[in-house]
C-alpha cells in the first residue's frame, strides 16, 4: 500500500513471524483494548531465564501486527533481562521507521512484552515492578509518543 510503511513493515505485516498461542506458556501479557483498535497478546516459554519460544496475537492495524511480529523476533532466544530492556525505539528502528501516527504501536509492542514478563515474574513469586517499572493501564487510547 502506498501508505508510508517501509518495506520491512510490509514484510512483517504480510508474513508475520511467530503468530499463535503457547498453551503452556510461562508468561502471558495483553495490552491495549478493542475500543482503541489495538490489542496485543504475547505468550512466552521460558527456560533457565531464556526465552525459548514466543508467540503473539494482535488485533490492530498493519503497524500493530508488524511491530508485534518483529518484537517477537527480537526477544526470541534472549535472556529475560535483555528482553526486558527492549524499547519501542529499537522496534521502530528494526522496522526501518514507522509513520509518526503509528509510533504508539511500537510502544504497545514494548508493553506487551513487559506485561508477559511481568506475568512470568509474578508466577515465580518475584515482584516485577523493580525490574520492569510500571506498566501503564491499557484503557487509554492516548499513548502517542
Amino acid at each position: 500500500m502506498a501508505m508510508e510503511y517501509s518495506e520491512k513493515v510490509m514484510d512483517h505485516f504480510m508474513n508475520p513471524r511467530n503468530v499463535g498461542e503457547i498453551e503452556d506458556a510461562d508468561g502471558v501479557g495483553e495490552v491495549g483494548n478493542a475500543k482503541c483498535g489495538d490489542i496485543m497478546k504475547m505468550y512466552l516459554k521460558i527456560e533457565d531465564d531464556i526465552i525459548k519460544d514466543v508467540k503473539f496475537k494482535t488485533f490492530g492495524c498493519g503497524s500493530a501486527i508488524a511491530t508485534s511480529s518483529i518484537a517477537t523476533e527480537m526477544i526470541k532466544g534472549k535472556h529475560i533481562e535483555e528482553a526486558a530492556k527492549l524499547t519501542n525505539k529499537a522496534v521502530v528502528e528494526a522496522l526501518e521507521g514507522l509513520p509518526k501516527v503509528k509510533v504508539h504501536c511500537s510502544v504497545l509492542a514494548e508493553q506487551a512484552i513487559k506485561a508477559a514478563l511481568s506475568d512470568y515474574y509474578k508466577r515465580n513469586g518475584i515482584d516485577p515492578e523493580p525490574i520492569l517499572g510500571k506498566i501503564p493501564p491499557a484503557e487509554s487510547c492516548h499513548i502517542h509518543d
Partner: protein
Amino acid sequence: MKKPFVYVDNSATTKVSDSCFNAMLPYFKEKFGNPSSIYSIAHDAKLAVETARKKAADAIGALPEEIFFTSCGTESDNWAIKSGARLAMKKGKNHIITTNFEHHAVLHACQSLEEAGFEVTYLPVDSEGMITPEQVEEAITDKTALVTIMYANNEIGTILPISEIGAICKKKNVLFHTDAVQAVGHVEIDVHEQNIDMLSLSGHKICAPKGVGLLYVKKGVRLPNLLDGGAQERGLRGGTENVAYIVGLGQALEDASKDIYDRNKRLEYFRNKLTDGVLSKVPKVRVNGSLKHRLAGSVNFSFEGVEGESILLLLDGYGICASSGSACTSGSLDPSHVLLAIGLPHEIAHGSLRISLCDENTEEEIDYIIETIPKVISRLREMSPIWNE
C-alpha cells in the same frame, strides 16, 4: 499472471471518464483563452463555460444562472453554509440545523459558525443512518437561519428524505442546503420541485477531475460573495474560470444524469450479489446503514475481531482498492464519526469496510471480491486475540 486491479472506492473518488476527458482536452492547448477576453479562442472558452453551466443546470432541474462553479465540494459546502448564515444573520437569525453524520466539510463549517456565536443543532441519525422530516420540523425555531442536510451519506450510503425536508423548510421559510456530492448520478434531482435552495456537487465523484465543483443557488437567494474579485460567476466568486475542468464537470453531469434507472439496476444487482456473497461466507459480519434507502453501488460492512486498515492492506495485496472508517485509516484516535453516529461500538466501527462501485465494475470483479474477502478476514481473525469462533 498479471495481478488484478479492482477499484471499488468510487465514493472516495472516480476515474475520469473518456467522455469527460475528451471534452476537456481542447481547452488546455487550443481554446485556452481567458473567457473574459475578446478574441475568438476566448469566446470559445466563454461559450464552453456557459454550455457546461447549461448542462449542469439541466442535470439537476435548475436554471443556468443558478449554477456557480467552484473548486470543489468542500468549497461549495463552506460557501453555502457560511454565506447562508451571514445572510440570515441580517434577519436576526442565529440557529443552524444539520445532522451528526455529515461530511467534515459541513460539520467543520458548522463548528466554525458555532465559534462565531451561532447555535447549531446536530440531529442524531438513527441506527439505520436515517433522520425523519419530523426531526427537522421539530428542531426549527423562529431563530433558524439554515437547514443543511446531506442528500446521501458518503460512508454508509444512506439516502435521506430530502424532498420532505425541502417541503418543511419551504413551509417554515427557512433556507435549505443539501450536500449532494454522493447522490448525484444515483438519484433523480429536481431542485425546484424538491424545494432545495442550495445544493453542493463535486466533480471527482462522478468521473470528472478532482478540484472542480459547483453550488446551485436558487434565484432570489442573495447569497453573499465567496470571493471578491472580478465579474466571474456573476461577481459572486471572482477568479478566472477553470475552463477545462468546468467543461469536464458539465460533461460528467450530463452523463451522470442520463440512464440513472438503468445504472442503479445494474449497480444494485452487483451490490446485492456482493453483500449476499460476503454475508453467506463470513460469520460475524454486519451491513451498516439502511438496506432500503441507500445508494445503489455502496455497501459498508463491519467484521468482528479485525481492524479496518489491516483489511485494506491485505485487500491491496490482492489488487482491491476499498476504504474503511477505522481510526487507523482516519488518522485519528477515533473511528469514523458516521459509524459512531449510527451507534456502533468502537470495536465494531474499527472493523469496517466500504465498497463503492461504478459503471466500469464487472461481474468478474464482484466474484473476485466475494472470493477474496473471506480469505482476508479469516487470515486476520486467526491472528486476532479477540476472535474466537
